[in-house]
């Protein structure tokens, strides 16, 4: 199966030919995967400039796509994202690769578990966390046609099959009072495996901002347990869940990447297990959460 990253380069190449608005802005990473083209701008290893250039291109009516490893596209030029794009009110499509721990062997410098939380702290961003190359294609195609601010977080982790739907999508329905498990992007297959024999409603979400609070409220009904499984910093969408079900009793278990310096190399799957995001870890946390009785109201 093709990777999200390979699909991205194919789609970006095609977009350059098909749409004169499309511009690609790079800081070396990805240059060898894309054609030489008058609208591919490699600024060298200058990530602040990468965002500033994208802003200038957007001011002139182009649709800039900025691509690099997640730490270099989100964290290093964060103030440029806030000001050159957000405060100037121009659009861009940021497409990152590497996610939380794809670069396990590269260590902390190439890992960005905080990217979604950071962009969530800025107004007006749509954030896609595709779980499959086909979902990446849908997200990118939509993003190229618009002129708003969009972040697409690619990963080497991928589910076996795409879910091509908008908003929170129920994939398995439990009994009416069963916990609602929300799996984000590439966590879906592990989440389904973790809960296959348990009474749970499992729903999928690939667009996390804006967060589909209406969808979640519909699933939670009068109240109950919510489990959030996110492939980035644990709790990143906890406030969104809290806001969505603020008017009904609920408990929340928010799983994700722990906010620690792990200081381990290895493979992505080693890190997935270390953060409890493999099927065994998700199941352990989930059953432990269910075993803990809710505190009775006073």
């Amino acid at each position, binding site marked *: 199966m093709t990777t999200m990253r390979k699909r991205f380069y194919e789609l970006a190449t095609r977009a350059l030919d098909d749409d004169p608005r499309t*511009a690609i802005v790079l800081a070396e990473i990805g240059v060898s995967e894309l054609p030489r083209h008058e609208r591919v701008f490699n*600024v060298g290893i200058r990530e*602040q*400039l990468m965002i500033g250039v*994208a802003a200038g291109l957007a001011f002139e009516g182009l649709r800039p796509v900025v691509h690099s490893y997640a730490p270099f596209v989100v964290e290093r030029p964060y103030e440029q994202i806030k000001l050159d794009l957000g405060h100037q009110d121009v659009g861009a499509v940021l497409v990152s690769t590497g996610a939380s721990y794809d670069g396990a062997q590269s260590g902390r410098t190439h890992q960005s578990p905080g990217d979604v939380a950071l962009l969530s702290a800025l107004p007006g961003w749509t954030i896609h966390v595709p779980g499959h190359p086909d979902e990446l294609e849908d997200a990118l195609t939509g993003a190229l046609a618009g002129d708003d601010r969009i972040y697409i977080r690619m990963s080497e982790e991928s589910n076996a099959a795409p879910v091509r739907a908008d908003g929170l999508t129920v994939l398995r329905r439990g009994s009416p009072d069963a916990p609602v498990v929300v799996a984000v992007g590439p966590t879906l297959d592990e989440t389904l495996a973790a809960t296959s024999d348990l009474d749970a409603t499992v729903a999928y979400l690939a667009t996390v901002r804006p967060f589909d609070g209406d969808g979640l409220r519909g699933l939670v009904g009068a109240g109950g347990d919510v489990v959030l499984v996110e492939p980035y910093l644990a709790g990143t969408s906890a406030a969104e869940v809290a806001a969505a079900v603020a008017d009904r009793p609920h408990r929340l278990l928010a799983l994700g990447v722990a906010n620690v310096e792990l200081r381990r190399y290895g493979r992505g799957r080693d890190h997935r297990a270390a953060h409890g995001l493999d099927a065994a870890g998700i199941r352990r946390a989930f059953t432990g959460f269910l075993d803990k009785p809710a505190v009775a109201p006073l």
Partner: protein
Amino acid sequence: MAATTTLDYDDLPALLTELTGDEKHDRSALSTLDVLWVLYDRVLRVDPRATDDPERDRFLLSKGHGPAAYYAVLAAKGFLAVDRLAGFGGFDSPLGYHPDHLLIPGVEISSGSLGHGLPIAVGTSLGLEARRRERARVFCLVGDAELDEGSNWEAVQLAGRLGLGRLTAVVVDNHSSTYHWPGGIAARFELEGWSAARVDGRDHEALERALTTTGERPHAVVAEVER
């Protein structure tokens, strides 16, 4: 006074007084006054009635600190109603201590945090190139202390290597950078592939000559003003 009234250089002190309420004006606000006046009076192809004209010159004020001179020049040139000056900094005023381009027609970028204008100006220059807008020039005003920010040098380096001839950086040098620029600011631009000129930042003829210089390379005008 109506928004379209065109005033003269000699009217600027009165406009500044309108803005700040002070008879005497802060030097940091005034360091850019002559450069801004010459740009808007003699150099920039901009029109307050057509601020979205795709062929207009783009002027990006990167050094957004002390924008009184900028607002005064914009008012003198009809981009801003003179009666808006009095509310400077107020909740209902479009005029903040750093400018917001969404609130003032003709202002190209919002600024305040230093080191953002030149990188955007490089993108604007590349965008104009891609859109085949041959005439539009891009000017970006920075301060000598602002050049402390490394993001400027990312932009200077790339603009020089790519030969962005439509781009002019105007450096208002009032020697306010704590650690100075040994060997001079102009030399740094030249080393990166720019042409550069040093001029007296109060001499309107010299400023006009330097600011209307164009070539194959990006151009830096270092305007020296008293500290």
